[in-house]
């Protein structure tokens, strides 16, 4: 019936044939509807799929596609139930039976059977069972009433069987994929995030689809609302036996066997996925445990990267958070040497050495000798005190003045890190100076800063070279 495409509209059959020929559009439409949990999809989205398809076709085929996927054509051929404006967006409502046909054609489009949908499938069966028990349905084989409800029962049982089969096929594919990735070591899995995401996906699938189906297909399952599929089928089988409808009793038995056959594939899928989950979870733990340990090692290493040449090696105490309860033998280390090797002992020794060496150093040397062997703090203090000493030596001290007040005035202006105790150092330097003598006055002064208060007796400097006399 194809051929001429001058006709604007096709029959339902013709349209369906063409939809199947250009099935990618419908697949994409169903995927979109599933992702958005909506039966209706925006017209613009639908046409973007159509246009994408047309780009790949010859002109003649593209023309045919335009006619087939035309909304009016789809409406009159009952592929689309309705075209409706929802919140300013034009949406197309597809006929669900058409969707089901396309779902059949692609495993990935099978509707997931979750706990909820399995429950929904069981509800009519439970309702029939209740009515049979209460004697509300005909129990006379051959009557119309009897045939009606029995047909309904058989339809529902076989429909569910079909759905479950389809889903198991889908899950088997997924299971094999996960099993592969549990064994193999593809580069793509090296990223922690990717691994975590895939794990979450599998966990969700397991929880939402695989496990409920496994429970559903278990022989002994009973739900809160009623018996599981086997017990239900078993009930109907014995019911048909009691009323001597042997062919229906046999039919029920054959369904039981078919359902039973599905248990081992779903169990296999469940095993594959749970092995994947276990392995991946272990691998996730391993990955993040090692990443965490590495960050400790890296931080300890980064501490060695400063300008300080003494820190070439990692300080083992930085690794303390990695501590494990394992002890390594320490027999080789000889105990009596331990005190002498202790850091505090060595610090004291080196500070003393540095200070002594410094006092022999050339007067204007900025560099602290032995600075590599003492702590940074000690080196800084030593440098400061040296600078102060140089300043005292080079300053032009006026005689017969309160030199502490003068030093305070000068230093607090010039030196940002000046503090009152520095004045003691100034005084002691001047006392030891060969050029001056100190002269005590009967006068008291006070100096205050943020931290200290200094009360002192005023002293004057007297030049030794000019005046050899000793003043009290």
């Amino acid at each position, binding site marked *: 019936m194809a051929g001429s495409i001058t006709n604007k509209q096709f029959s339902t059959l013709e349209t369906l044939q063409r939809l199947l020929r250009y099935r990618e559009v419908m697949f994409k439409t169903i995927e979109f509807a599933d992702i958005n949990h909506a039966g209706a999809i925006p017209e613009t989205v639908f046409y973007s799929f159509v246009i994408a398809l047309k780009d790949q076709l010859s002109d003649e085929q593209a023309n045919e596609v335009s006619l087939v996927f035309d909304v009016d054509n789809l409406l009159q051929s009952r592929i689309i139930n309705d075209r409706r404006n929802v919140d300013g967006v034009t949406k197309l409502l597809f006929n669900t039976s058409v969707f089901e046909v396309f779902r059949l054609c692609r495993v990935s489009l099978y509707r997931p059977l979750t706990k909820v949908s399995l429950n929904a499938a069981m509800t009519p069966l439970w309702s029939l069972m209740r009515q049979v028990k209460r004697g509300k349905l005909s129990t006379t084989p051959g009557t119309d009433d009897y045939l009606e409800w029995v047909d309904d029962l058989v339809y529902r049982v076989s429909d569910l069987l079909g759905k479950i089969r389809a889903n198991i096929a889908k899950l088997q594919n997924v299971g094999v994929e996960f099993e592969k990735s549990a064994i193999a070591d593809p580069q793509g899995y090296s990223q922690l995030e990717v691994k975590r995401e895939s794990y979450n996906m599998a966990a969700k699938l397991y929880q939402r689809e695989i496990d409920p189906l496994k429970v559903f297909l278990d022989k002994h399952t009973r739900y809160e609302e009623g018996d599981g599929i086997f017990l239900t089928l078993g009930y109907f089988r014995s019911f048909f036996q009691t009323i001597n409808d042997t062919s229906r009793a046999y039919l029920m038995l054959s369904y039981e066997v078919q359902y039973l056959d599905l248990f081992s594939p779903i169990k296999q899928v469940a095993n594959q996925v749970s092995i994947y989950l276990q392995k991946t979870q272990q691998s996730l733990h391993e990955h993040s445990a090692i990443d965490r340990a590495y960050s400790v090692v890296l931080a300890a290493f980064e501490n060695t990267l400063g300008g300080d040449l003494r820190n070439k090696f990692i300080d083992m105490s930085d690794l303390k958070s990695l501590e494990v309860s394992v002890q390594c*033998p320490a027999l080789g280390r000889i105990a009596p040497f331990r005190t002498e090797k202790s850091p505090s002992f060595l610090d004291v020794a080196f500070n003393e050495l540095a200070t002594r060496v410094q006092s022999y150093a050339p007067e204007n040397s900025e560099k602290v000798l032995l600075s590599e062997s003492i702590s940074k703090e000690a080196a800084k203090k030593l440098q400061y005190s040296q600078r102060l000493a140089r300043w005292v030596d080079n300053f032009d001290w006026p005689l017969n003045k309160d030199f502490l007040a003068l030093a305070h005035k000068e230093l607090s202006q010039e030196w940002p890190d000046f503090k009152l105790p520095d004045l003691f150092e100034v005084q002691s330097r001047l006392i030891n100076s060969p050029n001056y003598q100190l002269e005590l006055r009967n006068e008291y002064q006070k100096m205050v800063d943020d931290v200290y208060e200094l009360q002192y007796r005023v002293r004057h400097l007297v030049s030794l070279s000019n005046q050899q006399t000793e003043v009290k």
Partner: protein
Amino acid sequence: MSMDRNTFLEVDEKLSQTIYRAFYTGSVINRKEYMTSQAQFVESKIYLEIRQHENHYIQLYRHLGYELIHDEEGEFFSIKLIAESESEDAVFDETSLKIIAILTLISRIMTQRGQPLEFLGQPVQGITGNDVAALADEETTSAIFKALKLKTPIDALEFIKKRGFAFRISQSRYVLSKGAMTMIDTLIEREKELSSSVN
């Protein structure tokens, strides 16, 4: 030691010397050692010797000032100085920290590739020449080894081998001891606890 019997007469003098030498050189004594000639892990004679005369060796090393420790999980013996006071030196063991740092760097190569860490303890897998090359190629890792006073990844492997936490299988392949695997497991268990306390 009991008054009526001299345990020194019961133990194997040669093995006792071997045990002392192992401890003296800083090695633990593993239950299983990798034998290149047999290409598999075999039970260690000296480990069995200690197990058989455990009380004797506990006494012996206590007299020398050490506590003989058996690591149940890692299946090895080690000794620890009996500290007179809980001084700061006794609080952490530098060597074991260095070992765990090395194990961390090695394990990272595996986890980055998505390989299970148990491979490190299996002679058919272990740490291969490729792994060693990968460790050396990574700039930061290589610098960290140097900051741990180890010139190369091979030095690092030799360091843990000398202390009984790895064995050399062939020219360029090593395998970790059960003790080393236990150390790694400790890190993983700690992580599991952390993640379960978060969730």
